[in-house]
Structure formats: structure tokens, C-alpha cells
């Protein structure tokens, strides 16, 4: 075995080390290259698209369900009609709305 592949003698092998993450199969070189190229070329595009969509959604939820965060809005009839559709997103929405943010969050 070449030296650079030798496991460190003083370190016990930890669970998960060198094994694919949960739900992933062993990756081939083609898959690695594909993921790397995607990461370089398109991953930030995907994130921006998700951010744009999420901003619009969160604004909409704030307008209709703002009272869940203590924003004093009149509880309109349509909020109740929309509530079942919003319920799955409420936990992440609250977390994003209440998380401390600063200017560096606007960069990435």
C-alpha cells in the first residue's frame, strides 16, 4: 500500500470514516467529476433560484400569517383558507425570519 494511503497509526478509525454518507452509494470517478463541475458551474445558480423563491414565499406568508410571529396584522378570512397549505413551511419560515442576519448573509 502506498504511504499516502496508509491509515494514521495513532488514530482509531471512526465510524463513518471513508464510507459514503447515508443514502449514497459508492461514487465512481464520472460521478465525482459530474458533481464537481455542477458545484463550480451551477450550484450557486441553484441556490440563488431557491433563495429568490423562498423570499417571495416568505413575504407572502408574512403578509398572510404574520400574526404567528407577533406582527400585528388583521387576521383575514383568507389566512385561514391558506393555513393548511402554509403549515408544512411554518417551522423553517419562522427560523429564517427570526434568525440573526448581517450583511455578510447578502454575499453568499
Amino acid at each position, binding site marked *: 500500500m502506498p504511504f*499516502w494511503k496508509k491509515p*494514521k497509526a495513532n*488514530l482509531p478509525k*471512526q*465510524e*463513518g*470514516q471513508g464510507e459514503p*454518507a447515508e443514502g*449514497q452509494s459508492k*461514487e465512481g470517478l464520472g*460521478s*465525482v467529476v459530474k*458533481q*464537481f*463541475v*455542477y*458545484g*463550480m*458551474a*451551477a*450550484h*450557486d*445558480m441553484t*441556490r*440563488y*433560484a*431557491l*433563495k*429568490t423563491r*423562498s423570499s417571495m414565499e416568505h413575504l407572502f406568508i408574512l403578509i398572510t400569517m404574520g400574526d404567528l410571529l407577533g406582527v400585528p396584522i388583521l387576521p383575514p378570512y383568507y389566512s385561514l383558507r391558506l393555513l393548511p397549505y402554509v403549515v408544512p413551511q411554518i417551522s*423553517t419560515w419562522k*427560523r*429564517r425570519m427570526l*434568525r*440573526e*442576519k*448581517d*450583511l*455578510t*448573509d*447578502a*454575499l*453568499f
Partner: protein
Amino acid sequence: MSSVFALVVALVVAVLGYRWYAGYIDANVIKADPKRATPAKMYMDGVDFIPTGRHVLFGYQFKSIAALGPITGPIVAMKWGWLPALAWILGGALLFGWAHDYASAFLTIRNDGQSFGALSYRLISPRGRATLLAFIYFYLLLILAAFGSIVANMLVKNPVVPVAIVALMITGTLAGQAIYRKRMDIIAVTLVMVALSLVGVWLGTIWKIPIASFDLWLLFTLFFCYLGAVLPIWAYAQPINYISFYLVALGMLGAIIGIFLGRPPLTLPAYTGFFTKTGEPLWPLLFVTIACGAISGWHSLVSSSGTGRQIENERDVKYVAAGAMFTEMVLATLAVIIAAGAVGANGFAEAMKGGPANVFTQGMASLLGFLGIGQTFGVAFAGAMFAILAITIMQLVVRFMRVATVEIAGEKVPILGNMHVGALLALFLGYVLVKTGTWNYIWTLFGGSNQLMAALALMLASIWLAREGKAWGWTFYPMLFMLATTIVALAVTAHSMVFTVVPGLQAGTVVPPAGQSVAAAIAGNYIAAAIGVFLIVAALILAYDGLRAFFKVKGEKASQAAAPSHSA
């Protein structure tokens, strides 16, 4: 010295640093735990916090950290010879750079995904956060000025490049419409648009635009940034970055193959002396002239706010953060080879008259020439590649400064809330700095602010490590070195501007940059010196607060260890 040998040495350093030093810290100090839930898993919101595969993140991290810095810095640093530049790139990345990126990522991961503002508030002081954010604003302004100036200078010297840039903008915008609006197949769109971009580069070699007006090309560059800052990101900035990525990747691949085919020797002097002809000392100025490639504060922002929130498994951090840093080190070595080998002793001085971008385009064209690509096409290709790398970052910076302006003054001055006003204000500030400043000094200030950012990230990491009772020397001593070096570098630069350049301009012994009046150059030197002084003051405040916090934490840990146990 053979360029291939330099590249091989860089690869060996990268492998050894990654496997042994980074591997040791990862396993024995941080103890990356694959079972520990990362913020990406704990707070998954599908947007900011999203578990992402390690190979994807490696690509994302590398793309985000490797822009113009690792290319421009080494070229500028050739004034001390290629050996100090190469030594700092390899040594800096090995001892400082990877540790900085890796620790920044772990800072966020082990602190609930918090960004640097929140971390400095908690770990240093409330004043620390405000100072840090003001500091970042000026840091970004300097990026805008430094990159804008480089691109404009390069366009003055290379009339084959402008058409290629416009072609890239058009093909990128069309790609955005095709992918997002028409929902066409992304692979087909990519192939067609990349091919059209190459046709655009070729057209640039036929339709030359020989306008030697720095002002015009500066406005041309800033106009693209304005569009990038105000248009929807999917419609303009992103698809252009996406298409240009393929050109950049092709160019880099071609350059590496060119090095192995041509094996150009490094013909520039290995070492020219401690002082340059204009009296710039190697220490501290080399260490701020070359930032990216050795250590760069920009990476800490990427590692914390960007990558740290997407890490799926703690064991991926070494691969993503340290791996990308060592890869960038190899890219910076490539820039040394381009300057000292591909352009070399015969053409470097002449090419440098058009700035480092011109050296890069000439050198890249020489390397691509080993693959049988014509010199003119090579220059147009490399020029477009360089410009797009700069404009990509500049667009991001203007967009960020627009947001920052609204946050800072939007409530008091409502008109600043308008996105066009915010973007134009940022561009105006950048324009004033470029028009009045001397490029060399702007680059040094930019490098200094970048390295200070790195020192601050290392300081945050050291305080956190001390709080956790972990070994902190691997971030603390690099932090001390970077802090001292950059504060001295900024002081030397500000002093030179006020006490050497300004009197020289007044006496007529120093010639103002082309197209500048003496009065404007004097004003510019004072503005840049004031920014330098501001950065020093901000750094000193943060250093004072940070070191106080660090020693307080260390003292508490020591007293806890010395206190007798009261448990029964």
C-alpha cells in the same frame, strides 16, 4: 528553473499539507465527527441551510475563492523575483491558508451556522461586530476599485478583447432566457452558447476596437457591473458566470497542458532584493500583495456564510475547505509560471506596462500557443477570461454594497433604498477611487484589507478554540503574523502616499497616472491614505477587543483547571 518542476513542487506541498497537517488537525484537534448534526441538517430550510454533497461543495468553494486574486497578486509580486512569491504562496497556503479556510468553516458549523457578524458580537464584543461590518464595506470598495482599474487597463492595451466580452455577455444573457424562460435542455444550451462565445472571441480578433481611453473602458466595465447589480440575477449575472465558467475551465486546462508541452523555464530573476526599485520592502508588502493563493480573508466569508451552512458531514470540511485552498495554491503557482516563464525576461517589463492583466493575457496566449492556438486568438481568449473573472466579483460586490447602503442609511435617507441609486452610489465611490488613486497603492490597500480580514477570522477561530479547550496555536500564531504584517503594510503604504508620493507630485518628480491631473492624483492619494488609516484603526480596535477576549477565555480555562473539584 523549469516551470514543470515548480508545478510539481506545488503539487507535492498540496498533497503533504492536505494529508498530514490538515489530516492531523482534523483528526486530533477538531475531531471531526460524522455523527454530529451539522447546521445544514439541524436547520435545513432548503435555501441557506441545505445538506450538499462534498464534491459539489468542493467545486462551489473553489469557484467562489479562486477569482482574480491568485492570478494578479503573484504577477504583481514579480518585482521581488519569482522565488519569494513562490515561497510565500507555498508556505502561506501550507501553514496559514488552509487552516484559515478550514477553521472558518468549522466556526460556523460548530456555532449553529452563525455568520461572522454574529460570531464577532458573541466572541469579541458588540463593538467588534459594527467595526467588522464597516471594515467589510471598505474592503469591498477596494475590490471594486482594484479590479475595475485592472480590467480597464487591460482593455486599453488589448483591442481584441472588448468584442469577446460583449459576446460573452450576449451569449450568457441568451442562455439565461433559454434555460429559465424557455426551459430548454441545459446541456444543449450550454454547448451552443459556449461555442458561440468562442466564435465571439474569434470575432474579437477581426473586429478590433483600438480605443486607448482608460476612462471609456472603465465606464464600460462599470456599466456591466451596474447591469449585474440591478437586473434579476437569473437573467444576467448568473447565466453569464455559468457560460464563462466553461471558458475559464478550458483556459486553465489549456494552460496546464501548455506548461507540460512547452516546459518554459522561469527566466525572470529569482530574487531582485529586499527593496524594489521604488523602495517597497519585501516584508511586509509581499505578504499583502499576494493574498489569494497563500491566505485570503475573502475565503473566510465563503467558508462561513456560504459553505459552512451546506456541509452535510463534518468529515467533509477538510476535503472541501482545505482541499479547495490547496487547489487554489496550485492555481497561484500557475500564475507565477505565466509571469516568470511564459512571458519571461524578454517580455515581462513591456507587458507590465499594461498592468498584470496584460501580463496574464500575454502569458496565457504563449502557453496556449504550445497547443497550436494562435497568439491573437489566445490573447482575446485570455483577456475575456480575465475580464469575466473580475466582472463576476465586481457585480457581486456592487450588489452587496447596494444592500449594505440600504441597511446602513436606507431609513434616514429613503432615496438610498432605491436599487439604482444604491448601485450607482457604490459604482461612483469605486470610480472616484480608481480615477484619483494610484493602482499600485489601491492593490496594496486591497491586499492589506483582505489579509486583515483573514487575521480577524483567525482571531475568531482562536477565541473559539480556546473556549472549547482545544489546541489554538495553529490559528493563533498565523493570526499574530498576519495582523502585524498587514497593519505595518497599511501603515507603510499610507505613509508612502502622504510623505513620498504627494510631495513628489507637488515637486513634479512623480508623474501622475495616465489621464490624471496632478490635483486629482494628490486628492486620490489623500483619499486612499485615509482609507488605509481607517483600516488600521478598525484593525487595532478589533485586535484589542479580540486579544482581550482571547486572554480572558484562556484565563478562565486556566482557573477552571486549577480549581479543586467540589463534587462529592
